[in-house]
């Protein structure tokens, strides 16, 4: 197997870094990102200064402000962070199509295996990407180069908030050995608790255990932990093609809301927009993805599959509603909602086998066709479904 070269880029305190780019007055003061208006607001992100004062992610805002009273508090802007991530991503893609954004928090993996004949050694590529981030976006990412994603991520964690790290192939185990277990992604708090009972808190100590010993304590998970502490990670960098992003529409609620009728009304409107686009391109959706951003800054992403693929608003809404049921499990108000479709197929011209279902399908097609034609001619607001009226009073 060819040895791999994985670059991990990590913009520390990503949300704060993006906000500081938008407003340079924030550069020299501690910043906390949290929804001030929410009753039980939690810290979404904070600057290094606030971190040094004891502020942590997920901490109640009131407590955070006791630790760092001089901090400037800003509401989260998920759309702004997403846009910044895409800008970062565009600067990475010229070096490799195998680039992966794991979240919207400034982490990007790039697999540059086999590109050195084109672009030079991996550390040089990492440095160039970092220079591009700095000069073109004002962001200063931490970077690391390693033979897999696991080790590359630990390396950037190690040098946070700024710096770089190169772990040579074959040195993964040595590199991990002196580190505390909490730095290794994949070792969960419950695992650490269990290791703690055996007085084991460093990677090197756990690496001294055999697979059988780990199996005895953790059962089937023992194998995973055995690999993690040795820096073995075969997971690929998932390629991400911008074109595959698909169709996406979103809505920011003027006032954070927990009203079912309002949320479903908005969901229906988003579904209509996606449906209209799908029908225009003669496509059917195979899935719908829903992102909910809550007023405390938490984000939940869920999806639902459409089987068989659908393109009319009524069927699409049923799929979207299923995704909403999966995502909306918290008793916290919603600030932002985004509905997307990234798996399509061409509309089937296959006729229904039975006359009854064929008639129903044709009726639906004709109705949708009529709605689309009216809206095309007189505007999208000319014909509305009853469930969206609740938005006018909201």
């Amino acid at each position: 197997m060819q040895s791999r070269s994985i670059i991990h880029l990590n913009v520390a305190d990503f949300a704060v870094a993006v906000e500081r780019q938008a407003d340079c007055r924030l550069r020299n003061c501690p910043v906390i990102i949290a929804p001030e208006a929410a009753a039980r607001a939690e810290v979404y992100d904070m600057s290094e200064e606030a971190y040094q004062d004891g502020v942590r992610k997920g901490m109640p805002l009131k407590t955070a402000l006791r630790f760092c009273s001089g901090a400037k508090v800003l509401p989260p802007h998920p759309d702004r962070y997403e846009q910044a991530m895409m800008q970062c991503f565009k600067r990475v893609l010229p070096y490799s199509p195998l680039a992966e954004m794991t979240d919207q928090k400034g982490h990007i993996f790039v697999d540059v295996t086999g590109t050195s004949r084109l672009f030079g050694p991996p550390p040089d590529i990492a440095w160039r990407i970092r220079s591009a981030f700095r000069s073109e976006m004002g962001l200063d990412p931490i970077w690391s180069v390693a033979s897999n994603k696991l080790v590359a991520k630990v390396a950037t964690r190690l040098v946070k908030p700024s710096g770089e790290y190169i772990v040579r192939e074959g040195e993964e185990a040595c590199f991990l050995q002196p580190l505390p277990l909490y730095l290794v992604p994949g070792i969960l708090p419950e695992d650490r608790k269990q290791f703690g009972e055996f007085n084991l808190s460093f990677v090197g100590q756990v690496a001294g255990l055999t697979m059988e010993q780990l199996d005895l304590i953790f059962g089937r998970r023992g194998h995973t932990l055995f690999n993690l502490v040795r820096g073995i990670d075969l997971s690929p960098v998932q390629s991400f093609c911008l074109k595959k992003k698909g169709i996406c529409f979103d809505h920011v609620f003027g006032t954070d809301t927990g009203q079912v009728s309002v949320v479903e009304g908005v969901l229906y409107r988003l579904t209509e927009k996606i449906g209209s686009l799908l029908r225009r391109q003669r496509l059917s959706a195979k899935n719908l993805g829903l992102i909910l951003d809550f007023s405390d800054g938490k984000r939940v992403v869920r999806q639902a599959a459409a089987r068989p693929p659908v393109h009319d608003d009524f069927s699409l809404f049923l799929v979207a509603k299923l995704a909403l049921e999966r995502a909306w499990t918290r008793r916290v108000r919603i600030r932002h909602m985004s509905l997307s479709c990234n798996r399509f197929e061409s509309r089937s011209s296959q006729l229904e086998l039975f006359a009854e279902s064929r008639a129903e399908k044709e009726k639906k097609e004709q109705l949708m066709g009529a709605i689309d034609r009216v809206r095309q001619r007189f505007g999208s607001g000319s014909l509305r479904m009853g469930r969206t009226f609740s938005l006018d009073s909201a």
Partner: protein
Amino acid sequence: MEKTPKQKDPPASCRIHVGTSGYAYAEWTDAGFYPAGTKSGQMLPLYAKQFSITELNYTWYRMPTPETIERQRQQAGSGFLFTAKLIRTLTHEIDPMKWQKEALCYREGMAPLLQSKQLSAVLIQLPPSFARTQSNRTHLSVLLDSLDGLPLAVEFRHRSWAVDRVFDELERRQVCLVSVDEPDLPGLFPALDVVTCPDLFYVRFHGRNDQGWRSGNMQKQFDYCYSDDQLGEWIEKRIIPMSSRARKGVIFFNNHVRAQAAENALQLRRLLSKEGLEIG
């Protein structure tokens, strides 16, 4: 510009070490320099079978740590020599608030090589934009002071530094001036045979790819292969004169694309042996 060195105590003999700038290039396996399937962590012992010295260039990208340096030292063996590029935060991306602390960290990182006497030089490669201005002269002076005690070599890439006053100051400080071979393009530092430190002369062959030099792509910039004639001319005009004025010489090839650096380094060793020079 050309300087006649003030030689008080001419060295009796000069041992010359030839190597490459960096050794861990994946493409060198494809080029056949390393056996197929060689992993980057296994390259140094294989490299050390062919050469007696290498120039560590990863130390430009990241701060060296004593652990990593010690591991490399052990991998290469006790007779092997190293030079190491100075980290970019002291030469290219200088933060006035942090750089002195970085200099201390760098010195600490290099300690294993210094203690085992396997560190031939720390290469201070200055950026092409680093012209001889008052502020740059001050920075260089303070930088050399802060690295005092390490064997230092300075590579200028801006022509404005090619003056006798600079060579005199380097000589006073016993800091080695790096001689370079690169394309004949305006503004670049010229190829010289000046020796400013009797302990060491230092040569870097970057290749003469004038088309790719300013392309911003290393693979184009350093894609070049020297001929016997070109190397022979260098030996005659510069290496032999410099070896008569220094106790040790280190020569590196930076044209790493498709392992041409390794090929040229072996070629130069052969030519130097023919001339009767002492090869390390």
